């Protein structure tokens, strides 16, 4: 910042003062936004029960979306598991296009992965079975372990709406 000192002494003063201010006097930045939904002006954004509850209710009113033991002490593959879960979520929402109407719950037990979700009844059961077979097989050859889909269907999108904000 030497060039500032030379050019404008006034600015140099301010810079000095700035560097003096400590953390506890800096602007408040404790607002948490992740996992919360903004209220719309028309109040017409549909929320499922899970979406309606902010993250601090996890374990109280709602539950975890990924169930595994990789983050316990001395457990294996914590980062890989997280990335894989992300991949599974992206893959399932993309494969079941515009059909998944809930969070995707991923449960790992021993070497198996169970994936649960709510699916809209927008396509025929036959096509659903095709997608079930496809998703299970492709994910299991990607993750190299048995993958099971545990889906439930809902007749209407509105069935899963808990409230509008």
């Amino acid at each position: 910042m030497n060039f500032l000192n030379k050019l404008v002494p006034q600015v140099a003063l301010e810079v000095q003062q700035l560097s003096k201010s400590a953390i506890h006097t800096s602007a408040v930045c404790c607002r948490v936004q992740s996992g919360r939904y903004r209220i719309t002006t028309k109040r017409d954004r549909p929320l499922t029960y899970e979406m309606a509850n902010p993250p601090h209710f996890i374990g109280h009113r709602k539950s975890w979306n990924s169930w595994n033991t990789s983050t316990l002490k001395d457990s294996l593959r914590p980062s890989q598991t997280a990335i894989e879960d992300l991949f599974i979520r992206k893959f399932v929402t993309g494969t079941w296009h515009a059909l998944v109407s809930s969070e995707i719950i991923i449960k790992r037990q021993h070497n198996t992965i169970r994936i649960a979700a709510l699916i809209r009844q927008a396509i025929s059961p036959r096509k659903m079975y095709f997608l079930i077979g496809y998703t299970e097989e492709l994910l299991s050859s990607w993750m190299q372990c048995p993958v099971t889909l545990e889906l439930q269907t809902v007749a209407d999108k509105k069935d899963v709406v808990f409230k509008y904000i």
Partner: protein
Amino acid sequence: MYLSRHLRLLPKANIARSLNGGGVHYTTASSAAPAEDSPIQIPNRIQRSPTDLLQALAGTVGRDSTAPHYKYHDDPFLIPMSNAAKRTYAMSKESGRKAAQWIKEEHRDLFLHHEAQPAIEKFAPSMVFTEDSQVDETSLSQLISQGELKDAVLVYSLLEKKGVAISSDLKQSLLELVCFYNNEDPLPEEWIEERWFLQNNRRRERSGKTWKDGDLAEKLYSEIEPKTPESYAALIRGMAKYLQGERAFALLQEAAEKRIQLDTNTYNSIIQIVSLLKDTAEQRWQLCTDLLQEMSQQKLRPNIGTLNAVLECISTFGNFKLARTAALKVLPEFKQLGVNPSLGTYYYLLIIFCRERGPVSHIIVDILNDIGGKELSIVHPKDTYFFATAMDVCRNHLHDKSLAKKVDALLHTGKNYDLIGDSFKESIYYRNFLALLCQTETIEDFMQTYDQLVPNIYIPEPGIMEEILRAVEINGAVEHVPRIWSDMVVFDHTHRESLLLYVLRIMVNNKPSTDSPAHQQLPEQCAKVALDMYEKVEEAVKRLRKVSFTGQMLGDILTLLVRGDNFEKATEVFAHIDKNQHRIPGTPSETALQEFVEASIQNKSPSQALTALQYAVDNNMESSTLARRIHNGFTLNETHLAKLKSLVGESFLEK
């Protein structure tokens, strides 16, 4: 923490006792004290396989008849409700799996990572062999051991082109592979559903020769010099399996001339196709005994395959007496040799003894006495034919309910259900079982079995539905009709005219008596069924399906609606009859019209009654009674009276 909480709860005296530990023991050790002097015997360790625990757990749960098969998704929307749906759902799931496999093969570079340690081969994409692949003998032997026929043949031709010498052992194993599959890629084992539903189609293809003459197998065989017994055996068995009978037999004779020692299974394969080689029963039996003699000369020990092959040969005899005596001769001989019969053996015995036009035979009783309550396992390919055939014999040959129940008990013993075969045989089995039960059991007992089997284990075909309806009709058990009708709707039987007529006839002929409390709801329910049927047929007519109204059907619907006090809908139905009377074949029965007229009298609707009368007159039906009823039932005004007169004349008024 836990301990302290419990200490607080206990009275003080107890605390002391449980803490110093010397006092009373609540364990079993004290009660077992007298046996102190006998030494502890540690049992020998039993070696368990990795899946034993799982199998023990699986043994504790049976098939749940209230839930669909576990291959279907447990969600109301995804549970199949008809035979067609069962098939399509299972097959589409598998076709999704196939699509995923295809993606994996297409983008093989993305699936080369190794997650598992050690790597699991099945998850990796398969090796691809092309014209320029670097191959050697080891890759060929590996492919053969994996049973990859197409790739093995390709690699073999590559090796040949390069001029690499292939050991005769390897050639022999390739020959065996090619002969076994007739140089056609088999259906991979992982497509379980395709196998389960396949058999229906394959049955028709059978009987013709499918062996590929002059193909790779014979080329390989000619390259093997000197000829070994194994190469003869492989080629003979291949030809016999794919029904190239003449040449297989010629090869067998050639081998015999050259004094080449063949094995039992090769002889078995020839005995199996004796019916292709000879035409009459006597000649077949002659050849069969000759072959068996040859075997004994060569000191070959016959096995279960020999027994079943001989019985298969006998089962093709047209001559019933010869077949029976031959079978009875064969059985004790094999018993002496220590060959235990398998289910396949019993299958052949059943088709030998229980022929459609032959005398009645109770051999199945002896068979069931022999194997009843035993847990069986598969030893011969034909073993899966037994249960369907046994049930068929119970129904069509002996017509015996208790025997059928015994067969059913045997099927549900241990893991015997694995021997049911495929979907086709399973449905034949249940078809016969249900048809027999509904003819022989009381309707209440039958409905219990029906509730258990339908719809998750078995869905009746229209023919069986008709049998069930017949049983309901004979028993006059009209209270079951609403239940059966709702099943028929779900199973998509509503476009079968004969079934619709049957349901209507049962409901019309068995007028529910209002006295018994069980029948209180019935007229209303029957009317609902009738209305439902009316709407279904109307819809079907619009969609140009094959079902259409007949006068009889509409008349019955009319009667039921009238009885169910739904006069409004009844008039609607009658209006339909009246309006389309030139399009509808036949007319409603006279009683239907009479009941309708009665109802219109009750509902004080003379114009409806007169329309009915007009209809009766137009269609040359008995009208004078109707007219009299109308005249007596109503106090008619002038216009109505004039109409009545114009329809039937004035003659009836005088009486």
